[in-house]
């Protein structure tokens, strides 16, 4: 079920109403049932895959806790391998088969062409990683193994974050299923506001920009440099609003039910460096890779060369996590290269800034750093969004060619949509400024009821009227 669907508009109030009327013991069961229903709205039979993952890690957790020493480590690896096998079969088998055939062809071995066409279960990478974090934390002794199957299954399947995160850690979420959540008016209102902001990001900004981006990136060779540049800029906003919008809706939904999920985005395009960007973008995944891949590899507490390798491995895997395509791997590696280059050139950059008299805390320096970080991110998004590396090469080399202001529109994106799209981006930036920096939310709370409700109602009506409702999935569902 999509958050931006009529079905969810009926599903959510029903789930919330029943949830608060049920006694504590029944509530987790109710959440599990609701989560199953939510997931089965996509492809019902795929819930069995989820069940397999849940069963593997539920029993693995208990066994790991019971044993010590080498056997404990072996069990951990067995659990990780089993869980990752499910992920491999459904997500990467086709990709590796084709890649292997291609590689064999290079050596003159012509293997028979095998077509592996499996529909990827929605959000598979997310709940797989959440399950993996559970067994690793049990292994590390940071989390007690959960003996109640219903509670554990609900932890993996909790519908607000089931298909696109945030990827929670057991220490943060699991215990919340045992707590009694009273109906808290302030919490519910806060959650609803968060959801409304998420819907604005998704429906008004991301899905409107998607119309343009899909047209241009669907056939880059049929579009001029201006269109390619604009589409790349739009994609940067589309993917941010799509994913952070989903996270906002997820956090808001959970908050209405009385749960706290981890923050996933902190205005990443305001970052002053790529390193900072990755502390603000998809935080739950970045920290996952840091905790379970980068640090176990040695992190930065190794020699320089090994540190570089650790970064590239972490970002390469992160790229592959996003999708079974070389473009994603290259995107991950490119970000790794950015970080390596960033750390190597830091000293030189500081010297250049000092030489031209731009101090460390000046607005000019911040503006230059923020802009350059954003541009580098946009360049990486080209690799992420393009269908293949051939398209990447074409787009990068044609960004500045054949600009024609009269041919700015595309098949689906009429010219009249352009002011709406631009206005949506400006409104987003203003909204973020008001929300984060000026705490407009609490300011609104001090207004009289008619004014406050007027402001909220206007916002909701704007989202309804300017939203795009094309049953568009969230981009990150496919990961």
């Amino acid at each position, binding site marked *: 079920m999509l958050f931006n669907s009529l079905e969810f508009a009926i599903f959510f109030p029903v789930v919330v109403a029943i949830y608060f009327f049920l006694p504590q013991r029944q509530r987790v069961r109710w959440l599990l049932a609701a989560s199953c229903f939510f997931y089965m709205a996509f492809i019902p039979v795929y819930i069995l895959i989820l069940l397999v993952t849940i069963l593997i890690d539920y029993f693995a957790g208990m066994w790991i806790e019971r044993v010590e020493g080498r056997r404990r480590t072996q069990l951990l690896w067995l659990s990780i391998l089993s869980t990752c096998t499910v992920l491999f079969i459904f997500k990467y088998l086709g990709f590796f088969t084709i890649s292997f055939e291609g590689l064999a062809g290079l050596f003159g071995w012509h293997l028979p062409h095998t077509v592996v066409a499996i529909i990827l279960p929605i959000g598979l990478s997310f709940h797989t990683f959440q399950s993996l974090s559970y067994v690793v934390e049990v292994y590390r002794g940071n989390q007690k193994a959960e003996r109640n199957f219903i509670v554990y299954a609900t932890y993996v399947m909790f519908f607000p974050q089931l298909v696109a995160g945030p990827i929670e850690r057991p220490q943060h979420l699991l215990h919340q299923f045992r707590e009694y959540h009273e*109906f808290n008016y302030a919490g*519910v209102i806060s959650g609803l506001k968060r959801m409304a902001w998420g819907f604005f990001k998704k429906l008004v900004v991301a899905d409107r920009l998607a119309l343009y981006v899909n047209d241009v990136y669907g056939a880059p060779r*049929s579009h001029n440099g201006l269109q390619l540049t604009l589409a790349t800029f739009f994609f940067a906003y589309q993917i941010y609003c799509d994913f952070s919008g989903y996270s906002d809706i997820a956090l808001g939904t959970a908050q209405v039910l009385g749960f706290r999920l981890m923050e996933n985005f902190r205005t990443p395009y305001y970052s002053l460096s790529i390193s900072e960007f990755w502390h603000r973008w998809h935080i739950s995944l970045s920290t996952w890779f840091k905790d379970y891949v980068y640090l176990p590899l040695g992190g930065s507490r190794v020699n320089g060369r090994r540190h570089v390798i650790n970064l590239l491995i972490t970002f390469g895997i992160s790229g592959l996590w996003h999708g079974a395509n070389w473009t994603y791997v290259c995107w991950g590696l490119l970000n790794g290269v950015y970080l390596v280059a960033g750390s190597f050139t830091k000293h030189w950059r500081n010297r250049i800034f000092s030489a031209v008299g731009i101090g460390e805390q000046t607005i000019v320096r911040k503006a230059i750093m923020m802009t350059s970080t954003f541009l580098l991110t946009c360049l990486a998004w080209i690799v992420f969004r393009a269908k293949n590396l051939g398209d990447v090469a074409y787009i990068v080399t044609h960004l500045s060619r054949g600009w024609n202001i009269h041919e700015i529109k595309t098949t689906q994106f009429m010219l009249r949509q352009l002011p709406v799209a631009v206005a949506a981006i400006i409104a987003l930036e203003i909204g973020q400024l008001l929300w984060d920096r000026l705490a407009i939310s609490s300011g609104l709370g001090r207004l009289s009821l008619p004014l406050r*409700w007027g402001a*909220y*109602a206007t916002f909701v*009506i704007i989202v309804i009227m300017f939203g795009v409702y094309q049953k568009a999935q969230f981009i990150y569902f496919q990961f």
Partner: protein
Amino acid sequence: MRYEDSFADNTGRRTETGIVESTQGQWEERSTDMREESEKEKARRAMDGVRRISCFFILIALLVCVLNVMITIGLRHVKTGQYGVSNRIMQGRVNAQIVITGSSRALSHYDPRIIELQTGRSAFNLGRNGSQSDMQLAVLRAYLEHNQKPEMVIHNLDSFSFEATRQVYDPAQYVPYLYDEELYKPLRQFDHNIWRSRYLPLYGYVVTDMNFSWVLGLGALTGWSPREEYFEGFNPRTKKWTDEFQSFKSANPKGVYWPLDPEGERSVENLIRLCKERNIQLIFVYSPEYAEMQKLTMNRVEVFTRFHELAKRYKFPFWDYSDWTYARNTQYFQNSQHLNAEGADVFSKDLAKRLNGYFSAQSQPPAIAQPELVMSGAQTANQEGRNGVLSFADISTIQRLISGVLKRWAKFSIPDGIIACNPRPIGSGQP
């Protein structure tokens, strides 16, 4: 302050040990009362919160309903564009003698002003972008429901005329009129979710519509209407030849196959029967198609055989303009399927001449002139050239007609005895 202290302060009695002087039962009773009171307070606050949230969503629902009504009323008052055309049809303000039905090809090929000028019969174009025969039939039914019966229906055919509707194109154009059963019934067959647009406020305007028609609706309430691009239902295409055909050719190097769906065939037959039942003359016209495209239609012979069969079986003319004089000239086309404004102007004149011939032949005794049922455009042009048929029999009729047209279009008043030209170049594509 400890709880015991506060309790003692309230009662004013303490024991030596500092414990409140009260029996165990009294203590429990009191604390239970307080707990209950606190629970009640919590429940009251929760209910108050639920009530507030419900009120807010009721307010939103009311706003949505009010907006929906305003947009619908606004769109029904739009005087220009596609909605302007639909409003004239649904409000019974067309009542033309000749009605043209069909897809976007009909919409952009037939200029009713030229037909009206040359035949002396009022004409109106009901063509709809992206419509198949079943949808075209629905529009015709709605037209007949609200307007006087026309003398003639010119149904424009396409290679894909026998294809059934899979998805309604631009459903938003029908949303203000979904309470009209003639439109709603067929739409429900093509799109099972159309009920949402009918019953859920704003659904049809914001979910199914990508063109911000609601802005037009709200604007119309203030008296604003967009620039007119539709002339008696005719929407000329102002673009010159584009490279769409080249892209199409490279995308379909082996050509295209148009399916002959049983439902599509049934719709065409139903349209014929409807005209027969209502005693309306029907002419099938295959308007010009770019010659190169004709070669790319793999089952063209099969489709045209069906057209001929239907025309023969139901005894009505089928005019095929496949070999139109300018079918190879890209100057008259926007793409392979659509004439541009210049092409539409030339074609409409050709067709109007032929209609004149047809009407003249009908007015003569049958023994003298029996119009050939199936003729190509070239054949007719030659025949007309030989006979020199012109339907302008009475100069005063022409004057009356032109005067009427001009009055309607330009609010000109023409003194009797003067034949004026329409100030707007007809068929130029410029309003």
